Structure formats: structure tokens, C-alpha cells
């Protein structure tokens, strides 16, 4: 293999990891506060469509990103309302959200942006090489010649780690995810924290969607997320519910995706389907491996009625 092949592989691995990482960080915030979000797929789809619609109607990619963040933030709050205040089952609501996202984006994608060959192309988010850093051999071009959203995702990982492990609020989030009742008796506003985490998760889903639609393809195609919402969930599990681990898992899964595309184009005889299965299989192994070692927030998927709301 020559240098060019390796560099282009690394660059595409990073490019494919970024949407995973952004969505996974969104799931991580929700997960650490005890909310299992299997509706990320639908959220990211809505984000991807809103991004393109925004970029098309305002004729600017940043406006698209902002619109996507706004829309998916609202979707996150709606999800929060259904599972936190209403107390409905998170798995079922998550499934509904996936169906909702797929249905809405397909219908509106066709009516607003056209379909197939006639689908609207928009200005994507341009790549901005960072001076000096992008000159590092091999990894420089891959890591530091990406679009702004990629850089945002790099910065979000240490930021999330800082928030979770060094701030009071992060401690509250983790305590709410482990034992909401204990947190509540200590005066932590369980519902408020979960709502904020849902909002963050939703907004990150919007950014993740934009990094797919505006960062890679410059257009919206039906069901373009294609399971990445679930791979993001896998990345959180495989990353043991930590920001750094989540990033590692996202890179691994993004790399596997890039490799599978290379294999297909080089005609290497390993069936690409097995490469596509890899994240899911690895997650199942990891989940079985971790079990009993309590990596998962204990209160995952359990609804909680705050003490103040309980009738005495």
C-alpha cells in the first residue's frame, strides 16, 4: 500500500466517524441521565433533512446547521416530555420516533427537495485545513483537513469528559442515571436534568445529521442515516458509557465502514456484508463481556416520578 491510499483511507475513516461520534455523544448524555434513546436514528434523519432544507432556503450551510439544531432540539424535548413527564416506555417511544423520523423526512424530503436525480444539491460545509497541523504526514491530512463539524466533534469529547467528571452538574447527571431516588432526596432536580440531557442529545443529533447531509453528500437522500443511529448506540455501549471510549468506538466503527468501502472498490473478496455486521457483533460481545461489571447506568430505561409529584 502506498502513502496516498493510507491517507485517503484515514481521511474517509475520520469523515465517516464524525456523524457516529456526534450522535453517540448525544446518546451518551441521555444515557448517563438514565434515558435509553433507541430513537436516535429518527432524530439524526430529521436533523439531516432540516440541515439541507435550511441550507437550501437560506442559501447557507451554517443556517442549515442552526435550523437542524433547533428542530432536533425540539424533538429531543418532545421525547423528553413523553418519557420523563409522561413516563411512557422509552423503548416504545424510541421506536415510534424512528418511524416518525423516517416517515416525516421521506414525505417532506420529496415535497421540499425533490427526489432521485432531481434532488436538490446544496452548498455543503467546506473543509478547512488547519495550518501546520494538517502538514503532519499521514494523520495530519486525515484529522486536520476536515469540516468545522469534525473539529467541533473533536472538541466535544474532552468537553463532555470535563462536564461529566469535573463539574457539579456532571456529577448530578451521573447520579440521576444511577439512582434517581437517591439523587432526588439530596435535592437534585431529576426531571430538569433529564430534560436538559434530552435537549443536548437532540441538538447533537441535529449536528450529526448535518455532518452526514451537509458534510458528506451535500444533499438529502431517503433513509440516508441507514442504521448509523443504532451504530452510535453501539459505540456508546462499546465505549463503556464514557466520552473517550465512545470516541474510540466511533473511530473503530467509522474505520470499519471506510475499510468496507475500500474493499468493495478494490474488489477484495471479503464480503462487505461481514464488515457491515462488525459493529453490531462487537457490541453484542462487549455487552455480554461487561455484564455484571455495572458499566451501564443503573437506572437506564426506568421512568422516575419525582418526589414532589407524588401524592403523599
Amino acid at each position, binding site marked *: 500500500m502506498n502513502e496516498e491510499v493510507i491517507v485517503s483511507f484515514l481521511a474517509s475513516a475520520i469523515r465517516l466517524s464524525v456523524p457516529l461520534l456526534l450522535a453517540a455523544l448525544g446518546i451518551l448524555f441521555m444515557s448517563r441521565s438514565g434515558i*435509553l434513546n433507541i430513537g436516535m436514528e429518527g432524530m439524526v434523519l430529521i436533523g439531516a433533512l432540516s440541515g439541507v432544507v435550511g441550507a437550501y432556503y437560506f442559501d447557507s450551510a451554517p443556517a442549515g446547521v442552526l435550523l437542524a439544531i433547533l428542530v432536533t432540539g425540539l424533538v429531543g424535548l418532545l421525547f423528553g416530555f413523553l418519557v420523563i413527564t409522561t413516563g*411512557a416506555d422509552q423503548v416504545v417511544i424510541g421506536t415510534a*420516533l424512528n418511524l416518525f423520523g423516517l*416517515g416525516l423526512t*421521506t*414525505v*417532506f424530503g420529496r415535497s421540499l427537495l425533490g427526489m432521485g436525480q432531481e434532488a436538490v444539491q446544496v452548498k455543503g460545509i467546506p473543509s478547512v485545513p488547519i495550518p501546520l497541523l494538517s502538514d503532519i504526514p499521514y494523520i495530519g491530512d486525515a484529522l486536520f483537513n476536515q469540516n468545522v463539524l469534525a473539529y467541533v466533534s473533536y472538541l466535544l469529547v474532552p468537553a463532555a469528559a470535563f462536564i461529566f467528571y469535573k463539574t457539579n452538574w456532571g456529577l448530578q447527571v451521573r447520579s440521576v442515571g444511577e439512582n434517581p431516588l437517591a439523587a432526588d432526596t439530596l435535592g437534585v432536580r431529576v426531571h430538569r436534568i433529564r430534560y436538559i440531557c434530552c435537549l443536548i442529545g437532540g441538538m447533537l443529533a441535529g449536528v450529526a445529521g448535518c455532518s452526514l447531509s451537509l458534510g458528506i453528500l451535500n444533499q438529502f437522500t431517503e433513509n440516508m442515516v441507514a442504521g448509523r443511529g443504532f451504530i452510535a448506540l453501539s459505540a456508546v455501549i462499546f465505549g463503556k458509557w464514557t466520552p473517550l471510549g465512545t470516541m474510540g468506538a466511533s473511530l473503530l466503527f467509522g474505520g470499519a465502514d471506510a475499510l468496507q468501502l475500500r474493499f468493495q472498490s478494490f474488489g477484495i473478496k471479503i464480503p462487505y456484508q461481514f464488515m457491515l455486521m462488525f459493529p453490531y457483533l462487537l457490541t453484542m460481545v462487549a455487552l455480554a463481556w461487561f455484564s455484571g461489571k455495572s458499566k451501564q447506568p443503573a437506572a437506564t430505561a426506568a421512568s422516575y416520578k419525582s418526589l414532589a409529584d407524588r401524592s403523599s
Partner: protein
Amino acid sequence: MREARKVNLASERWVKAVIEVLFYGGAVFIALLAGGLVMAAAGVSPLEAYRLIWDGAVGDAGSVKETLVKATPLLFAGLCYTFAYRCGLFNIGAEGQIYIGAMTGTMAALYVPGLPGYAHLPLCIVAGAVGGALWAGIAGALKIFKGASEIINTIMLNYVGIYLVSYMVTGPMKDPSGTLPQSARLPESALLAKLFDSRLHYGFVLAVVLAIILYVVLNRTVWGYEIRSVGFNKQATKVMGIPVNRNLLLVMLVSGAIAGIGGFVEIAGVQNRLFQNFSPGYGYDGIAVALVGGAHPLGNIGSAILFGGLRSGANAMQRMTGTSTSLVYVIQATIIVLVVCNRYWFGGWKRQLIAWLVNRYGSRRLPEELQTAHSASEVKISFNKGEEAR
């Protein structure tokens, strides 16, 4: 005296049932309104679209049959979710189990030649059931032996199953005489016979029979009692001496087998070949079917036909107006949300309504009772009745 009491309790059950049915009807209506809003926003006249959907779903005998064709896989998927759900398990993996069941059934159909139809078809159906059961069993075994969430694992297995089928039909199982990524055509002996000279096949009958069997198993057998007991409270069930883990694994296997049969039936009844993406998300639709069917096997029949109608109607609409059939997903999602949230949003309101109705219309019997209630003990019975009602 006892007679009067029975009648009154029956009337209360009756009132409850009517309210529930009205509620589900209301949820479907609101969801259709939501779908209408989406259509209006997408620039399609909702009335026109719904007229097309209605015609496409029940407009004539042919479209009714098409509705039942579409309802068949939905019913299997709904039953798959329902059965696991009654045991407190979330089997989100019907989609993957449908694919694997279709694959193993097709293998039995293609690679076990020379059998007559009466032996070959059952063999294939059993092969489909075994495939689906094994696929769900992986998640079940990981749950009881490793404590890994069956929710996550069934989701992961969906994708693994879909990619596995994709590999099989492009590689080992690819039709040698064709270029398309699909299996060879199933032999006649492995195909489901058609009903009334249409696309409707015996798979629908099989699904309905299965629903009835599951109803009997869940509500009329000791095993069904154990399953529901595990679903209500695992700790208490364990204390009662019922083997919880064994039941969880068995239910997961049966649930997967149901979806597996559904997968093969779709191939043997409609598609006649195995190929990639033959299921447009039937497994996920099954969750909506189960929820609207009240997680009751017989209720599933009605809701599967409802969603089957929506689907075949939406196909007709797409042909006429170009609006995507994905609209159905929006309607389904809205129904799911309304049905799941009803307990929290309308639970108290519904209880009040029932109490009011029972008081208003049940009270006509109450005075008769009181007329005969000469002694204090008999008055006490009617008091107890109030207790029971709660």
C-alpha cells in the same frame, strides 16, 4: 341476589370494554388527522389522499384481499412482539428474525428436493420457525446467562440478520441462472397455495390460527399463566417456585419462531424468492400492531388488518399522487405514542368516566338490590362489590 351482583359486574366490564374500544378508535382517528396535516403540509389534499387510501384498502374485493396480504406479515410480527411482551421481554428483533426465518425456510425449500407438497411445505415452515427461534434465542440466552439487555441485542441482531441475508443472496444462495442478487425460485412443493384466485395465500389463515393458539396458550394454560406471571413480577414469580429464566428463554424462542414463520410465509406466499430488503420494516411495524391490539393475540388480528389496509391503501395512493407510502410511518408513530401514553394522560379521566357511567346506568339495578337487601350483611355485599370494581 348473586344474580343481580353478577349482572352489575358484567355491565361494568362491558362499559370498560366500550370505553377502551372508543379510545383506540379515537387514537386511530387522531393519528389519521396527524397524517392529514403532514399531507397538507407536503402539498397533497388530505381528503383526496384518504379517499385513495380507502379505495386502495377496501374499495373492492381485490383491494380487500390485498389488504389481507399486507396484514399477514404484520400479524406475525405483532404476535412475535406480543408474546415476548406478555412475559416482560422487549423483542425489538422481529425484523431480523423475519429475515433469518425466511432464509432458513428458503434453504429447506431449495436444498431438500423431491418431497411432496404435504411434507415439504411443513418442513420449510418448521425450518423458518427454527431459524427465527435461534436468532431470538441468541438474545434470550445472552439475557439470562450474561444479563445483557435483550433490547439492545435484538436491535443489533436485526442488522446482522439483514446483512447475512444480503450476503447469502449475493453469494452462496444466489440463483445460478440469473444475474440479480436473489435466490432461485422456490419449487412448487414449497409454495403456499393461493386463496380465491388472488395474491391472498394460506399464510393469512396460518397467522390467524396462530393468533388463536397463542390466545389459548396465554389465557387458558398453566404455561400461559406462568408467562404472564413472569411479565407482571419476576421476583414474586420466583418466590412462587416458577422457573423465571427457563420461561424467559422459552418465550424468546417461541417469539422468534413466530417471526421466523412470518418471514418464510412472506417468501412462500408472496415473493417466491429470497432477496435483499424484502421486508420494508414489518418487524418494526409489528410493535405498532401489538400495541394497538392491546398486546392481546386476538386484538392483533384487528390491528394487523388495520395497518395492512393502511399499507395497501398507501401503495395505491403513491401510484396515483406520488406521495410516499412512508406517510404510513407517521400515522403508525402517532398511534404508538397515543396508545402508550393513554394510561398516563387519560387514565384518571377514563376511570372517572367509567365510574360515572356505572353509577348512572348501573344504579338502576342497585336499588333493586337494595330493595332486597334487608339485612346488614347483604348491604355489605354491595359495598364489597364497589371494592372489587376498583
